């Protein structure tokens, strides 16, 4: 081969199309914003129905998770995500999608060794490092309060 890996890397960078950042960012902005707007609307609705602030917040999260799970189940969420990108990934709805989609996918290998084992294949790292980060944060918070 007359081309070195280094030269080839340059050729590859030139040939590979660039990600359409402007389009992706605006998609994420609007879809992400829409989810937040919906969340806020639900929160206000629950408050108006006479709920206290903590319960209303909790119910808002639960509603969004349920909505995302249903949208994933009927095969719509991935289509929104194709347009929304990070806007569908970051909110709580993205997390629900990351749990529900493997659950659906691996059901064919059985409820225990398929669904049960694989359900956290996508969301697993978020749970592990989220928990770890909260422990570290808790420790720092504790020490700061002692000083």
């Amino acid at each position, binding site marked *: 081969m007359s081309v070195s890996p280094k030269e080839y890397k340059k050729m*590859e960078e030139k040939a590979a199309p660039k990600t359409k950042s402007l389009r992706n960012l605006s998609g994420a902005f609007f879809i992400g914003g829409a989810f937040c707007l919906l969340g806020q609307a639900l929160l206000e609705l629950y408050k108006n129905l006479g709920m206290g602030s903590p319960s209303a917040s909790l119910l808002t999260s639960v509603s969004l998770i349920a909505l995302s799970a249903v949208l994933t189940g009927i095969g719509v969420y991935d289509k929104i995500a194709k347009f929304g990108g990070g806007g569908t990934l970051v909110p709580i709805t993205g997390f629900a999608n990351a749990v529900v989609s493997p659950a659906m996918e691996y059901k064919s290998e059985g409820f225990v060794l398929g669904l049960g084992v694989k359900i956290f294949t996508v969301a697993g790292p978020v749970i592990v490092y989220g928990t770890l980060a909260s422990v570290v944060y808790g420790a720092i918070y504790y020490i700061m309060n002692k000083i």
Partner: protein
Amino acid sequence: MILDSPVSVFSSAAVGGKKEGEGPLGADFDFINEDSRFGEKTWEKAESKMQELAAKAALKKCGLSMTDMDFIFAGDLLNQCIASAFSARGSKVPYIGLYGACSTFAEALGLSAIFAEGIAQNCLAVASSHFCSAERQYRFPLEYGGQRPPSSQWTATASGAAVVSKNERPPFIKAVCFGTVEDLGINDQNNMGAAMAPSASATLSTFFKDTYTDPSDYDLIVTGDLGAVGAELLKELMEKEGFDLGENYNDCGLMLFEREKQQVESGASGCGCSAAVISGHIIPKLRCGELKNVLAISTGALMSPTSVLQGETIPGVAHLICFSSEKGGIF
């Protein structure tokens, strides 16, 4: 490897999913399944079923039955090649399972040709890939929401089968060139075209040098699934080797779908891509004489999900089949 007595591609058939049926080559498929499940419960079974359907259709076209086959050469992308093995389960024909990633169909055809030139009368070459079974093995669950980078490719839901025999029906396989494993350091699994282009370039230039031919001797040179990025890189690499691929070059990954409209980014990929395009589109054109001399090079990216996570680069391999509508000539 030039065959002393070229063997015939007696018949061939292609089977595809809904998206493939909607593409520019939709009419070339022998069978299109509307929901891509092929009446099966799992995607893996659906892929096996596709192979069975493709093999049956190919056999029917030449009036032979499975028991007339001396060997089956088959492969797919699934772990342990289950789609091929399971579809050969009821055949009672000696089965040789192959793995060459997306280069599998050319690998199967090449071996079939060599066997049919020698000890065998009829060989069956089959390969398949299924978008849904590949996606769950290599990437994310189907319903997981995410965006694909523009250099990524769409695994074709398709299967192709060909009966290779000792007889006089065109087209003929005149030569076979099995490729070397090449790696120029690409480690992005969303850019497999770039990872495979060096192997296609190596196989093609070896073939041209060995046979004293050049791209202008062929009316079509077609690679398996390099996609838009890989095809561009192959042209550049070949220029550096001193060969201009010219207007007669195309890529099965670019032929199978309308890239913009069907949203497949850089093009199609998977064993089924080159298997279906070669079986359903190119071989019939050679048979009727619309094409005379064709080089088909299936390209495979030889990574696994494990090797990618361990930070390995992606090696590629490319196998070449030289088809001709006439038994004599070219070399």
